[in-house]
C-alpha cells in the first residue's frame, strides 16, 4: 500500500470520462454566447474513467484515520461515534431533495423537524428561543455576539464594545469577537484552572458587553464560581455567552440557561453525534433568553395550529448570516440522535463521558505533569513538560508515537495556558477496554521517552508518509497542481 498516490491530473487521459449524460433532445440554441463572454481555453479538469475515479478516492480514504477506524480522543472536538441509521435517514429523498424555496406546504415535514429540534435544544440548554441558521461553531459564535451587540445597541448602550475572553479560550472566541466588531479583553485563569474572579472584577466597566465562556472550560474543568461570575457580569449590565464546544459534559447535568448564560451556541457535530466530515459540515445553532429573541437571524420557524411557516417579519433581527435556513441535513441527524437517546440517554451520555475521562486520567496520571490536579469533566489536560525537560522529547513527539500504537493523537499545545499540553477527550462511546489500551500505549510512550527518546522523536514510522515539512509548505506555497507546474 506504500506505492505513491497519483493525483487526478496525473491519472488523466484525454477521452476518458466517468459520467454518462443524456443526449440533447432540444435544438441547439440559436442565441450564441457572445464571443467576449465565451470561454477561450477549457478548464483542465481531469479525464478519468469511473473505475479510476473510485479506486483513487477509495485509496485516499484508506490514508485517513477516522472514528470508524479507532479511538479519536481529540480534546474539545467530541469525536463520538456517528450512528449509521442517522446517515441513512439523512439521505431519505424527502429530506435530501428539497428545494429551499419550494412552498411551505410542500415542506411541512422539514419544518416540523426543524421546529422539533429547536424545541428540544431549548429544553436541553435552558434557553427560550433558538436559531438553526449558523453553519458551524465559529459561525454560531459570531452570530451570538452580533445578537448581543444588536440588543445592547437597541438598549442605547453603544459604548459597550468590549468582550471578555479567558486566556484558555479557543482561538475562534477572540476571532469571532472581532468579526462582530468587539474588542477583546483577556481574563486570566486562577490556580485552580478557572476564571480568576478578582481579575475579572478589575476588567469590568460600562464598556463591557459581556463574557464568552466555555463550561466545562478548555481545561476540562467546571467553572465552579459560575453563578458569582454571572452576577458580576449581569450587575455590570453585560451578557454571558456560552461556547457549546463542551456541552457533552452537561447534558442532563446542568443547563447553561440555569447557570446564567444569555446566549448559547451548540455544535451539533460534537454533542449531537453528527459526523465531522473531515472538517465540516457542522451546524452551530444559537439559543437565547427571551429578551434577545427579537434579534435572532431571520427567518424563525413558527407553529400555527398544526402547520409551520417561516416568519421573516422580524424588524429587530440582525438579518441573515448565511443563505436559506442552515445546514438542514445535519439537523436531521441531530434530531434523530436526540430521539434515539431520549432524556435518560442524554444524561447517561454526560455521565459516561465524564466517568471515562476521569478513569483515563487516573490511568495515566503518574507519568505526566498535571497542571490542575482535580476532578475533570469530559476531558482533561496533561503536560509533557517533564519529558521535554528530562528526555528532550516533546508532546508532539509523544503523540506522533501514539499513531504507531494505532491511536489518533489528542489535541496538543492547546489550551495555550499549559506548556506542552495534551488535551484528551475520550467520549462516552468508548469502552473501558479501549481506554485501557490507550492508557497503556501512553504510559509505554512515557517509558520509551526515558529509555529510547530517539524512537519517540522519529515517529511515526507506520504511516503512509512520515513527518511533513510544514515550514517549506508555508514558505514556498504550492496550493494547486497548476502552481506546481509553473
Amino acid at each position, binding site marked *: 500500500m506504500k506505492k505513491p*498516490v497519483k*493525483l487526478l*491530473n496525473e491519472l488523466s487521459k484525454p477521452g476518458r470520462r466517468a459520467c454518462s449524460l443524456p443526449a*440533447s433532445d432540444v435544438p441547439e*440554441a440559436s442565441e450564441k454566447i457572445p464571443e467576449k*463572454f*465565451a470561454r477561450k481555453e477549457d*478548464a483542465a479538469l481531469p479525464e*478519468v474513467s469511473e473505475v479510476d*475515479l473510485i479506486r483513487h478516492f*477509495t485509496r485516499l480514504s484508506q490514508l*485517513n484515520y477516522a472514528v470508524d477506524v479507532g479511538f479519536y480522543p481529540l480534546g474539545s472536538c467530541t469525536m*463520538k461515534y456517528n450512528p449509521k*441509521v442517522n446517515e441513512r*435517514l439523512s439521505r*431519505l*429523498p*424527502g*429530506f*435530501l431533495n428539497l428545494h*429551499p424555496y419550494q412552498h411551505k406546504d410542500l415542506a*411541512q415535514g422539514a419544518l416540523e*423537524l426543524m421546529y422539533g429540534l429547536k424545541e428540544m435544544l431549548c429544553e436541553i440548554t435552558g434557553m427560550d428561543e433558538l436559531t438553526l441558521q449558523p453553519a458551524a*461553531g465559529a459561525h454560531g459564535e459570531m452570530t451570538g455576539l452580533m445578537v448581543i451587540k444588536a440588543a445592547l445597541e437597541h438598549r442605547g448602550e453603544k459604548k459597550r464594545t468590549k468582550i471578555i475572553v479567558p486566556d484558555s479560550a479557543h482561538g475562534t472566541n477572540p*476571532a*469571532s469577537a*472581532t468579526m462582530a466588531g468587539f474588542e477583546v479583553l483577556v481574563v486570566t485563569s486562577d490556580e485552580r484552572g478557572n476564571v480568576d474572579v478578582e481579575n475579572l472584577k478589575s476588567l469590568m466597566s460600562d464598556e463591557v458587553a459581556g463574557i464568552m465562556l466555555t463550561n466545562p472550560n478548555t481545561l476540562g474543568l*467546571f467553572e*465552579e464560581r459560575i453563578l458569582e461570575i454571572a452576577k458580576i457580569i449581569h450587575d455590570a449590565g453585560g451578557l454571558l455567552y456560552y461556547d457549546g464546544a463542551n456541552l457533552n459534559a452537561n447534558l442532563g447535568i*446542568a443547563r447553561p440557561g440555569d*447557570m446564567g448564560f444569555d446566549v448559547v451556541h451548540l455544535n451539533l457535530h460534537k454533542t449531537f*453525534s453528527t*459526523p465531522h*466530515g*473531515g*472538517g465540516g*459540515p457542522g451546524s452551530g445553532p444559537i439559543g437565547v433568553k427571551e429578551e434577545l429573541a427579537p434579534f435572532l*437571524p431571520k427567518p424563525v420557524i413558527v407553529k400555527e395550529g398544526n402547520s409551520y411557516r417561516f416568519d421573516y417579519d422580524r424588524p429587530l433581527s440582525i438579518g*441573515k448570516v448565511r*443563505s*436559506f435556513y442552515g445546514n438542514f*441535513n445535519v439537523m436531521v441527524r441531530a434530531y434523530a440522535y436526540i430521539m*434515539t437517546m431520549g432524556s435518560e*440517554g442524554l*444524561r447517561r*451520555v454526560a*455521565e459516561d463521558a465524564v*466517568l471515562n475521562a*476521569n478513569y483515563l486520567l487516573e*490511568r495515566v496520571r503518574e507519568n505526566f505533569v498535571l497542571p490542575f490536579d482535580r476532578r475533570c469533566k469530559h476531558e482533561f489536560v496533561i503536560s509533557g513538560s517533564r519529558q521535554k525537560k528530562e528526555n528532550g522529547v516533546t508532546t508532539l513527539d509523544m503523540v506522533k508515537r501514539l499513531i504507531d500504537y494505532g491511536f489518533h*493523537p489528542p489535541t496538543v499545545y492547546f489550551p495555550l495556558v499549559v506548556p506542552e499540553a495534551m488535551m484528551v477527550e475520550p467520549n462516552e462511546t468508548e469502552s473501558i477496554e479501549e481506554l485501557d489500551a490507550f492508557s497503556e500505549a501512553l504510559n509505554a510512550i512515557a517509558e520509551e521517552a526515558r529509555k529510547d527518546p530517539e524512537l519517540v522523536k522519529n515517529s511515526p514510522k507506520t504511516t503512509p*508518509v*512520515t513527518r*511533513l515539512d*510544514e515550514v517549506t*509548505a*508555508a514558505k514556498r506555497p504550492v496550493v*494547486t*497542481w497548476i502552481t*506546481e507546474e509553473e
Partner: protein
Amino acid sequence: MSSYLPNTEADRRKMLEALGVSSVEDLFEDIPKEVRQKGVGGLPGPLSEDELVRHLTALSERNCHLGQCVCFLGAGIYDHFVPSVVDAVVSRGEFYTAYTPYQPEISQGTLTAAFEYQSMICELTGMYVTNASMYDGASALAEAAFMACGVTKRDKVLAAKTVHPEYREVIRTYTRFRDVTVEEVGYKDGVLDLEDLASKLDDSVAAVLVQSPNFLGVIEDVKTLAEMAHDKGAMLVVSADPISLALLEPPGKLGADIVTGEGQALGNPASFGGPHFGFLAATKKLLRKMPGRIVGQTTDLEGRRGFVLTLQAREQHIRREKATSNICTNQALCALMGAVYMASMGKEGLKDVAKLCYDKAHYTMERLLERGFERAFGGPFFKEFTLRAPEPVETLNARLLREGFLGGYDLSRDYPEIENGWLVAVTERRTRREIDRFAEMAGGEKK
C-alpha cells in the same frame, strides 16, 4: 440508546472503584447545587432504530421532493444531476468520520482530496489560490468583502442589486457591526448600471461585488467592471455559478481579484438549502490574506510528496483576534462531493452539462415567449432567465404546482419593479417533454 454506550454496569462500577468514589454523582460535586439537574426534562423518545426510521420516514413523506415534481426553480439552488460515485465516496466512514486534518500523517486522504478540490476550483475560476471551502456562497462573498477592505484599507463596498438578495442580506449583516458601509448599485436592462456604478465608485471603495450570471440570470460584463473598479483602486469580486464556468470565460481571466460562489451545483443535493459549500478563490497577491483552511503540497522526511494545512498564521487558532477570519469548521465533506463531481464530469462532461443547461434554458424561454410571456431583459443568459408573466406569479405557480411543476422564483418581493417577474431555471435534467408541458401549462388554460 445503549447501542452507542458500550460500558456495562459492571464496567462503570470498576471505573468508579478505580477512582475511589461510590457513585457517578460524586464526579459532579464541583457544580453548584442550585444548577444541578436530575436529567433533561420533557424530551420525546427514546426510540428504537425501527421506531426512529418509521418516525423520520413519515416526516420526510410530508415533504414533496424533487423526484416527485418537475423543478424549474433555481435562484441559487439547482436541480442538477448527481452521479452515484459522489455518494459512494462520501459514504466512506474514513472520510466522513474523520476530523479536520490536523495530523497530516494520518489524514492524507482528506488533505490530498482537498488539494485536488483546490486545483479544480482554480482551473474553473481561473484563479491562483482557493481555500478548502466556505460555509456557502453568501458568506463567501461577505468574507471576500472583508478581504478587500483589509487589503485596500478602505471601508466601503458596492454591491450590485443584481446579486442574490439573500447574499446581499448576509453582507449587510456581516458588515453592520464592523463599520463597513455597503451601498447598492442599481441595474439597467438586467445588468449592473454602469452609470450608477461610475457615480458611486470613488477612492473610498474597497470592492465592487457582482454576480455573473447574476441573480436575474443575465451575464455581466466582468471585464469592463474590473477595469472600472481597478481605475479607482478598488477590487472586483465576482460570485459565479461553477457550472457556467465550463462555457463562460472565467472571471480570473477577465480581471477579477476574488471569485466566490455557491458550490451546490457541483454534486450536492438541494437538501433544503444546506449543507453545501461556498468557494473563495483569489489572485496570487492575496494568498496570505485568504480566510479559512488552505492545503499545500510538501514532502516528508523521506522526500515523498505529501499535503498539509498551510499558511496557518492567518487563522484564528494562531492569530486569535487578529486572524483573517473566525472560520474554523468549514464544509469539507461537501467540498469533497464537489471534487468527486468535477472529476466525474471531467473536462468534457462539465462542458456537456453546461451546454445542455444552456440549450434547454433557451428552448424553454422560446416556448414560453410563444405563450404570452415577455423576456424582461435582452442580455445573454446561461441557465436561468427572467420573464414578465401575464398574470401574478403566485397564481401562475399555484396552477403549475397542481400539474406537478415547481415553477420559477417569484421576483415580486425582491424586485417589485419587474412586473410579474418570474425567474425560471432549467438544468440538464429537464426533458423536452417536461419543458413542452410546462410551457403549455404556464401559458394556457386560463379561466
